């Protein structure tokens, strides 16, 4: 992997939260580069700031200082509405609790991000079918989330994340709510998205077993990124 070809470039990012008069330093001077096509696991104990860092990379939250470039765009300079538009085109989200819209079918949930694009109805349909085929859920189009198992819902959620063909995929504890078999299935799918489709994936997890499935791992502890850059895979 060529590290000069980085798709995410984080420089000296700091993030604090204020709770009353108390200031919580969640991220302290973080710098991190993530290469194109990388599959990175962000690990660390609970409360270490993993989700916070992921949210910053995905443009869901604003850093106090430092810069974050994704695909050559400095997202810290974008306004709220510019960020929303940027997310729609560049980031695919996978959550711990799937977060599908309960009143929409699997098909409609996957189609949802596409209604913000200028694709024609026909193209949308094609995209949705392709995405559902990738996650192997094309036979459950008309099912509502409540009619699907956790693992199946997460696969639909992954289809929703990839349907816009985003620059990066971010996943916060994607297997945190799944049993081993379903988790295995989801991790295998993510591996395939990375290997076969070249997707850049950043996955937060505190489960070492899940972290090991990624190709690289970084540890976050008390807001500081340790330098144990390691390649756990061949």
């Amino acid at each position, binding site marked *: 992997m060529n590290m000069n070809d980085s798709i995410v470039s984080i420089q000296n990012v700091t993030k604090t939260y204020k709770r009353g008069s108390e200031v919580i330093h969640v991220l302290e001077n973080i710098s991190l580069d993530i290469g194109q096509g990388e599959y990175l696991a962000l690990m660390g104990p609970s409360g270490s700031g993993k989700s916070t860092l992921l949210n910053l990379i995905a443009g869901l*939250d604003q850093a106090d200082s430092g810069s974050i470039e994704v695909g050559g765009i400095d997202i810290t300079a974008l306004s709220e509405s510019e960020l929303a538009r940027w997310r*729609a*085109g560049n980031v695919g989200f996978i959550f711990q609790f799937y977060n599908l819209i309960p009143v929409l079918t699997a098909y409609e949930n996957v189609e949802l991000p596409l209604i913000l694009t200028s694709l024609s109805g026909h193209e949308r349909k094609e995209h949705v079918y392709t995405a559902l085929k990738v996650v192997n859920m094309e036979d459950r189009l008309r099912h509502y989330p409540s009619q699907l198992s956790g693992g199946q819902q997460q696969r639909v959620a992954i289809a929703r994340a990839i349907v816009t063909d985003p620059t990066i995929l971010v996943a916060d504890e994607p297997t945190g*709510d799944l049993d081993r078999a379903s988790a295995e299935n989801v991790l295998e799918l993510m591996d395939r998205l990375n290997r076969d489709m070249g997707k850049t994936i950043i996955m937060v997890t505190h489960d070492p077993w899940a972290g090991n499935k990624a190709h690289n791992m970084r540890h976050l502890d008390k807001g500081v990124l340790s330098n144990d850059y390691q390649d756990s895979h061949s």
Partner: protein
Amino acid sequence: MIIRILIRNAFRHKLRSILTITGIAIAILAYGLLHTVIDAWYAGVAASSANRLVTRNSISLVFRLPLSYREKIRSVDGVEIVSYGNWFGGYYRDEKDFFANFAVEPVSYLNLYPEYKIAEREKTSFLKNRKGCIAGKKLTERFGWEVGDSITLTGTIYPGKWEFVLSAVYKGKHKNVDETMFFFHWDYLNETLKKERPFSADNVGFYMIGIDKPENAASIAEAIDTTFKNSLAETLTETEKAFQLGFVAMSETILKAIQLVSFVIIVIILVVVANTMVMSVRERTAEYAVLKTIGFSGGHIAALIIGESMTITLIGGVFGILATYPAATVFSNAVGDYFPVFNITKGTILMDAAVTVIVGLSAGVVPAWGAMSIRIAEGLRRIG
């Protein structure tokens, strides 16, 4: 897709939605009904013509005016028709069965009130028969009268039994016309009085005057009143509308109270719908956060929430408006003939619709604002 989501959201909690819709329907129904009652109260005012004046004794309606004023009024510039009449105050069978009955000068009266539709043949027979009388269609239906029937009224102001023959039935040319009135030849009253109580004969309760142009009403009224200044019976002349308003004014406080109640109903239903929406939106905080995460704007979220609120409110509003019609019929039957004219006007329906839209929008605004301003990271945090 946005519309699909908002409609499905609206019926996510079926029972909650049905209860809310029922509440809205009842509120709109009550609102429409109260407005119809107010309209009914003002029906006389609405039916009045700007081309007509009423002259009465300046002291009070109870006091009469001499018949000799007729010619003097007729000679005032701008006056075209002069008719006159007396409130008769008789009852049919039972004193409690109230209806309006007058003695009027028949030819001029019918000329002055073209909104009464009467068959030509019946009209001629009425004018020919001294004991003839005309009754409104609703009144004849109430007592089961047919043209040709003899009708006996018992006088209260003019004691005794008074015999009439129903010569004609009138219908209103438009919906505001009171179809419950009864009138007969003034001469019949006056000649009887001449025989039995000569001192009260040749007196008129009020003059009804047709004028050339509405804009001359004020000057004509003044000219009439000036004519009789310093005479034994001074006059008060006003437009028919002002005359009718004088009756309504007495109950103005009640009308104000009704208006207040109808307003309170709307405020209550607004609070109820807003509460439902706030509850629903709060439950879905994470969903809205997810939509925002995916890239939906605050405007999209607001559209979803306000659209949902509008969907629920409009359904309730439509049911409410549809229910107003049968409810008005039931209501009008129940209160008997207290309101001679009881119609749901277009204005009432438009008010219903406006209120529905306002409630739908305002109930959605507060939760929409809340959902728009929620920060994604925090919205997502609320899950689980």
